[in-house]
């Protein structure tokens, strides 16, 4: 079985991780009913025939793919990127409902740097002269 990844081209089935039906793209709101969540997580059409399911190209471009295929013949009709389809990433909860963000951690008190006597400071002052002599660009 080969899937033609839109980015990587035709690749062996081994490169992909099958997740499940395209139902997973229609995630209910966090406060949706129990039935809506049960439907989303568990109930499936499970057709003997054309289906659309989600495959992750884990050994390739790591993109999520929506594959249109036939579960009886294994014929693959289409492979699209989930992002192209506009389904996008899992929606984040509404701003009001989001918990208060944690306060930013206090910056750690910086340890006082020990004074380093630079033995080479005299040499550093002398350097520009040598640079000018040799014409080295900094």
């Amino acid at each position, binding site marked *: *079985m080969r899937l033609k990844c839109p980015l990587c081209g035709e690749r062996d089935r081994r490169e992909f991780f099958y997740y*499940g039906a395209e139902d997973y793209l229609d995630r209910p709101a966090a406060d949706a009913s129990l039935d809506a969540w049960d439907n989303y997580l568990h109930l*499936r059409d*499970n057709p003997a025939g054309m289906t659309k399911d989600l495959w992750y190209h884990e050994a390739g471009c790591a993109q999520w793919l929506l594959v249109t295929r036939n579960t009886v013949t294994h014929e693959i009709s289409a492979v699209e990127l989930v992002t192209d389809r506009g389904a996008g990433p899992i929606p984040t909860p509404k701003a009001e409902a989001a918990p208060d963000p944690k306060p930013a951690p206090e910056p750690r008190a910086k340890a006082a740097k020990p004074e380093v006597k630079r033995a080479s400071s005299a040499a550093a002052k002398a350097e520009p002269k040598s640079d000018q002599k040799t014409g080295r660009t900094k």
Partner: protein
Amino acid sequence: MRYSGLKVITEGLLGNKGWSPAWRDPAPKADYDVIIIGGGGHGLSTAYYLAKNHGITNIAVLEKGYLGGGNVGRNTTIVRANYMIPGNTEFYSHSMKLWEGMEADLNYNVMHSQRGLINLFHSDGQRDYWVRRGNAMINQGDDAVLLDREGVRELLPYLDFENTRFPIYGGLLHPRGGSARHDAVAWGYARGADQRGVDLIQNCEVTGIDIENGVVKGVQTTRGAIRAKKVGIIVAGRSSQVAAMAGMRLPIESHILQAFVTEGLKPVIHQVISFGMGHFYISQSDKGGLVFGGDLDFYASYASRGNLPMVEHVMEAGMTLMPMIGRAKVLRSWGGIMDMSPDGSPIIDKTHIDGLFLDCGWNYGGFKAVPASGWCMAHLMATGAHHEYAAKFRLDRYATGHLLDEEGTGSQHNLH
């Protein structure tokens, strides 16, 4: 007719003219008390126990093809009672006891061979897991023996003990575990049901389920309409299609499991052996072929054949575990349609439609469950109450959270 050794000898001397068909081939009547949709292992055992345990005999088993032509017709034949969580352990323990009395009960040789089943483990963590499981089995009243590395070597000297990638730490032995002849159990239950008056109707595909005001009235089939007060859907991998006829969506996704048989060999593998590195298991049939399999292909499929990556993986696993089998020729392979449930455990329940019952979600473990599934489904259909051994096999448990997550992987079809 009763089968016996004496009958075999007598008939042999009389030219074998006295044998009668093992079951009738009746035309479907216009109505029955009960219709069982699906003439596989579970459907046939349900019909048998409805007749035997509950005295209900006005039953039709409707099979779209030939009896036992589905998953019971091709599987790796393992019979075991080594589950771990409450809800499952009592069910499979009961099933094992039914297997042990089956041949006497059915008067049929199902070649049930309690040759022992060994689950190998390859790390400290895996050993801890199998110790826990063995204790769960013993608590249930079944049998488990912990073997250390030398204990395994005594029984299975041909394993690769030098394997550093998967060193053999030991194994859990289930002495009463073993195998049985898959066709025979279907035929035994078929014959038993038929003898008690059940009509076995083959080449009869259900095309619709008739429901009025939330009450089931009967079915439409390729051989006509048949009325019934109670209908049981027992069709394994086809559950979604049949349930859709009743307007239902199920928590089932049908996946493919491949299995393989080699040419006949002299007896070399005397138990059922399961490799702890993954899902590889092997035994030897009485015809001599090595019967083995591994993981699902891991995508939804009704093709009844799998793809080569999993074939390669299964062969690799076999060669890793026991290199001696490398010379054997693989004669045939097949793929079955597995009704995967979200938690990997089965469903034996009523539906929201009065008189409509459902038995499905066996994943790839339905064969050992044939007797107890029939026993418990018959109890449910006859009395309306769940049998105590299948009380937790609820259809709505995914919504209520009462999962039977035996493998601890989560409530998702692709994780079992």
